[in-house]
C-alpha cells in the first residue's frame, strides 16, 4: 500500500519541481480533455503553447500580447502574495483593480481634452490611491470590528462592479459616444495613453511597474524586517505576537500593498489594452491573479514566470477557440486544472510517498 509520510524538513527539490509537475499533469489531462471534445489533442496543445510565440502568421500579433496580459497579472499577484504569506486573505483584488481604474481613469478624463505630460502620472497616482483606499475598507472593518477580510473583500468586488457599471453608463460616459455605455477612449487621448514603449514587444508602463514590483517584493522578503514579520505572522501567529509583531500593522501593510498594486494594474489596463472604462474591461484579472500567486509559490520570481504562463494560456486559448472552435469554457477549465494539480502536487513538499506493507 502507498502512504504519505511526513518529511522532517520541506523538500527543496519539490518546492521547485511541483509547479513543473503540475504543468506536466495539466498538459496530459488537457490532452485527454481536448480529445474527448473531438479535437486533436497534440494539435490543441501546440496551438495553445507554441503558436502564440512561434507561429509565422500569428506570433507577430501574439508575442507582444504576452507582456500586455502578464503585466496586470504580475502586479496583482505580487500584491496578493504579501497577504497570502501572512494569512491575510484578500480575495477582492478584482474590486481594488476596478476601483483603481475608475478613480485613475476619472482623473484623466477630468483633464480631457487638455494635453499635458502630467495627466498620465496623475492618473497612475490616483489609480494607486483608489486601489489602496478600496483595500482599506476590509482593513478598517477587520481591525475595529473583527470582521473576516475574506468575506468583506470578496463582497466589495460586487460593489465595485456595480460602481463600474454605474459610472460607465453615467458619470464617466463618453458624451460623444452616441449613447453607448463606456467612457472616452483613454488610449486615444494622447496625454493619458499607455502605449507600447518599444514597438512590437508589448512593453508598456504597466510591465515596467510589474517588474519593479517583483524586485521590490523580492527585496522586502529577503532583506527587510517587514517581509520577515509577514512570513512569521503567517507561519506562527502566536510566535509573531511573542516576537512583538503588531498583527494590525501586518493586515494594514499587506492589504495596502495589494490594493495599491491592483489599483495600478487597473489604471494601466484602462489606459492601455482596454482603452475605455466599460462594464467589462476588467476581464477577471483580479481572480486569475490568485492562481498566479499560488502557481508562483508566492515567490516574486515564481509569480513572474507563472504570470507569463497564464498569459500564454489566455492568448493560446483564444487562438484555439478561433482555429479549432474549442469552447471558451474548456480553456478556463484548463486554467483551473493547473491550480488543482498544483495544490495536489503540493503535498510532496512536506510529505514523501512510501510503500508500506499492510
Amino acid at each position, binding site marked *: 500500500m502507498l502512504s504519505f509520510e511526513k518529511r522532517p524538513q520541506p523538500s527543496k527539490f519539490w518546492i521547485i519541481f511541483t509547479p513543473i509537475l503540475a504543468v506536466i499533469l495539466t498538459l496530459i489531462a488537457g490532452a485527454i480533455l481536448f480529445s474527448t471534445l473531438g479535437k486533436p489533442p497534440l494539435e490543441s496543445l501546440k496551438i495553445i503553447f507554441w503558436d502564440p510565440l512561434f507561429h509565422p502568421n500569428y506570433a507577430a500579433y501574439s508575442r507582444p500580447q504576452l507582456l500586455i496580459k502578464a503585466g496586470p497579472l504580475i502586479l496583482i499577484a505580487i500584491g496578493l502574495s504579501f497577504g497570502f504569506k501572512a494569512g491575510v486573505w484578500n480575495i477582492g483584488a478584482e474590486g481594488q483593480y476596478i476601483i483603481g481604474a475608475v478613480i485613475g481613469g476619472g482623473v484623466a478624463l477630468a483633464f480631457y481634452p487638455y494635453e499635458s505630460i502630467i495627466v498620465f502620472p496623475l492618473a497612475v497616482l490616483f489609480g494607486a490611491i483608489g486601489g489602496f483606499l478600496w483595500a482599506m475598507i476590509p482593513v478598517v472593518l477587520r481591525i475595529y470590528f473583527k470582521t473576516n477580510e475574506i468575506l468583506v473583500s470578496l463582497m466589495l468586488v460586487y460593489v465595485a462592479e456595480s460602481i463600474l457599471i454605474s459610472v460607465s453608463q453615467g458619470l464617466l460616459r463618453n458624451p460623444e459616444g452616441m449613447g453607448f455605455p463606456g467612457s472616452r477612449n483613454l488610449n486615444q487621448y494622447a496625454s493619458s495613453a499607455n502605449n507600447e514603449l518599444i514597438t512590437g514587444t508589448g512593453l508598456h508602463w504597466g510591465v515596467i511597474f510589474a517588474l519593479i514590483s517583483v524586485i521590490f517584493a523580492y527585496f522586502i522578503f529577503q532583506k527587510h524586517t517587514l517581509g520577515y514579520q509577514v512570513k512569521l505572522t503567517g507561519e*506562527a501567529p502566536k510566535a509573531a505576537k511573542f516576537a512583538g509583531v503588531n498583527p494590525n500593522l501586518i493586515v494594514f501593510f499587506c492589504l495596502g500593498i495589494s490594493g495599491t498594486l491592483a489599483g495600478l494594474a487597473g489604471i494601466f489596463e484602462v489606459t492601455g489594452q482596454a482603452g475605455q472604462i466599460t462594464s467589462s474591461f476588467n476581464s477577471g484579472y483580479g481572480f486569475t491573479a490568485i492562481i498566479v500567486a499560488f502557481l508562483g509559490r508566492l515567490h516574486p520570481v515564481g509569480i513572474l514566470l507563472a504570470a507569463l504562463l497564464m498569459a500564454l494560456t489566455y492568448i493560446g486559448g483564444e487562438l484555439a477557440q478561433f482555429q479549432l472552435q474549442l469552447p471558451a469554457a474548456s480553456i478556463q477549465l484548463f486554467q483551473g486544472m493547473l491550480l488543482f494539480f498544483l495544490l495536489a502536487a503540493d503535498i510532496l513538499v512536506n510529505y514523501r510517498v512510501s510503500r508500506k506493507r499492510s
Partner: protein
Amino acid sequence: MTKKLLELEGISKSYPGVIANSDVSFDINVGEVHALLGENGAGKSTLVKTIYGLVKPDNGRMSLNGKHYVPGSPSEARKAGIAMVFQHFSLFEALSVAENISLGMESPPNQRDLAKKIKSVSNSYGLPLEPGKTVGSLSAGERQRVEIVRCLLQEPKLLIMDEPTSVLTPQEVQILFETLRKIKSEGRSILYISHKLEEIRKLCDTATILRLGKKVETCTPSKTSSNELAEMMVGSSIQIPQQKKREIGNILLSLENIVSKSINTFGTSLSNLTLDLHAGEIFGVGGVAGNGQDELLSILSGELIAESGQIKLEDRIITADKPRTRRELCVLSAPEERLGHSAAPNMSLVENTLMTASQSQHLVSKGFIDWEKTRAFTEKIIEEFDVRTPSIENVARSLSGGNLQKFVIGREIQQEPKVFVVNQPTWGVDAAAAASIRQAILTLADNGAAILIISQDLDELLEISDRFAALNEGKLSDALPTRDLTVDQIGLMMGGKRNLELSDAKF
C-alpha cells in the same frame, strides 16, 4: 509462585520514521503494582495503548489469564477486565459526576442507583465524591477521582494509570497512593506509568524500564536505587547541576497587585499578583497546570497587558511596554509551547533566532536584516548549548524536543538577560538535556540575573530555586525559601483554598 495476569511477548510497533516499541516482553502478575518507567518518547504510551486496544501492534502477542488476548477496541479491552485512566481526562465539564460516569458505561443503571453506587465505591476507596456536582467545578485531583471511580465500577482486573500524579499536589498524591494500595489489596493489578523515580520506588512492586522503544530491564524498584533506575532509563549517567552559593542582590523586577484577564476563554485570570525578584535569585513558581501560568508569562513577556497593577524594572515602570521594548530592557522570556509560540515550526533556526534576538544583538538596522550577523549568533547558540542539528538552516520542527528546547532557552540566555522568565523549561525533554538546561539557568543566576521559573515539576523547582511560591486560580501564594520547605507545605500552597484535605485519605 505468583499467578500471571497479563503476558506480553515481543510487542513491536513502528510509525513512519519512528520505532515506538521493539520486541517488548514482560509479565504483570495478579495483585501487583507494575511500573512502566521511561523518558518521554521511550514508547510507554504506545505500549499501554496496545494493551488497551487503541493501537494494533505490528508484531508480538499478548495473553490474559493464559488466554490469547487481541483487543480490537477499548470496549473489548474493558470487557476483558482492563480499565485505563488517561493523563488527559475525558470528562464533560457541564455534566455532573454521575452523568459523566454513566456515559462511559455499557449499560448504566438509573441515576439514583448509580449515585448510591458512586458514593459507596468512592468512599470505600478513600476517594470521596459528590455524584451531583458538576465536573466543571472540580479540581484536577477530584476529576481524576471521577475517572478512577468510573474504572472501578467496572471491577477491572487490571487498572492502567498514565502519569497520574502530573496534575496532583503532594497531598493528593498521598491520597492516590493509599487508594492504589487498597485496589491492589483486593487482588487487582495496576500498571503504573511514570517517569518519577521516587514515586515508583515507594509504590510499585516491579518496574519495567523502557528506553527508545526497547525494554531495558524488569527489576524490583524498592531494591534498586534512584540513580540506578535513572541510569537505566537514560542510558548514561547524568550530570547533576551544580548549586553554587549565590549572592542575592537588590530587587530587579517587581510586580504589584497585577490583575489581568485570561488569554482565552478557558484560561485563568490573574488576581492581585505581587512578587519581587532579586538579582541573582531563582524564583520558582509551582502549581497545577492551568492556574494562570501562561498568563503570568504573558504578562511578563508583554504579550498580555495588565488591567491594573504595576510592573517595575528597577526604577522604570514597564507595565504597558510592548514585547520589543521589554527585550530592549533585557527582560527576556521563553514560553512553554515550543512549536508555535517560542519558535515558528516551519522556519529555519536562523529565522527563529531573529525572532527574539533582533533587538539585543542589533540584527536589524533601519529595517534591514543583517543575515550574516544573525547566522553567526545562531551558530553561537548552537555551539554553546550543544543543539544537535545538521545545519542552522534546518526548520525548527525537524529538531527533537530536547534540542529545540535547548535552542529556545539558549537563544534567550545567550542574549544575557537581566531578567529571565521561563515556563516549563524542561517539559518533555530528555534527562540529559534537562540537566544541561537547569545548569544553564543556574549559571545565568550566578552571573547576577533574576530568574522566574514556572514549572509543573516540583523536583525541578526544589532543586534549583531559591524561593518558592505556588499559583492557584490566578493567585500567588506567599513566597518561602525553598530550603526550609516541607512537602506538606508545598501541597498546601499549591492547593490553595480548594486543597483536598489529608483526612480524606483516612478510611
